């Protein structure tokens, strides 16, 4: 238990959750978070859940690009008027 000196509790670990998943965290805090996750199954599960959520969000929202028709119209507007 000597390793517990500066270790985070669950509440503190979850406070860093998004910064950790976004990789916007200092190496020291990352280390502390990972140390907590190695010993806490509940938090590990919680972090994995949030990671799955962010991946899902990105994949689904990215599905919305411009349709081929929209792209064609925009390209015509861009270069058609330039005489190119």
């Amino acid at each position: 238990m000597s390793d517990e000196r500066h270790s985070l509790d669950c509440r503190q670990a979850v406070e860093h959750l998004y910064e950790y998943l976004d990789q916007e965290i200092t190496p020291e805090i990352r280390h502390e978070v990972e140390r907590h996750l190695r010993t806490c199954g509940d938090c590990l599960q919680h972090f994995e859940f949030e990671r799955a959520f962010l991946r899902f969000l990105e994949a689904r929202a990215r599905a919305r690009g411009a349709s081929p028709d929209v792209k064609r119209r925009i390209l015509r507007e861009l270069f058609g008027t330039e005489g190119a």
Partner: protein
Amino acid sequence: MTLTTEERRRQFETEALPHLDAVYRYAQTLTGDPTRAEDLTQETMLKALRAWHQFERGSNARAWLLTILRNTFINEYRRRQHQAETVDLAAIEPYHVFEEVQDVDPEGRFFASIVDDEVLRAIQALPEDFREVVLLSDVEGFPYADIAKMLDLPIGTVKSRLFRARHALQRRLYDYAVEMGYVKRRAS
């Protein structure tokens, strides 16, 4: 050095056009309307082509395009914008959906059942300030610092908006999944 029309077009095609989907997504996020999104995308790309000589080669073309888009939106579109009904984020409890699904679906498998349209509706239902932060971070993958620069906000504000928006989205999508029977609400 002045570029010929042909050189400018070639550079623009290689460096700006690959971001057309990202530009369109941001336009949709801000306007919430396909026709206006197309107009805004077109206007943004035209402005970018005309201002191409001002683009610093090697810098982030996507961030540059999205900034042009945002300024165009603020100056020319927002005034005409019909403000759609949005969720009141202050009313959203900042607790995690995970705590509710921990016993029944801790891996969040229910997310996979949710259709794209529902995800987009959930994003559109966020207030504009929050919607654009989610788009720039979670969809386009910009770091906090870049978003802060693009939106001219302190990093702390970007973070708090992002985290609250994620909570709100998660909550709404969870409620939808419960309603559709994709996940059981925990018996209380």
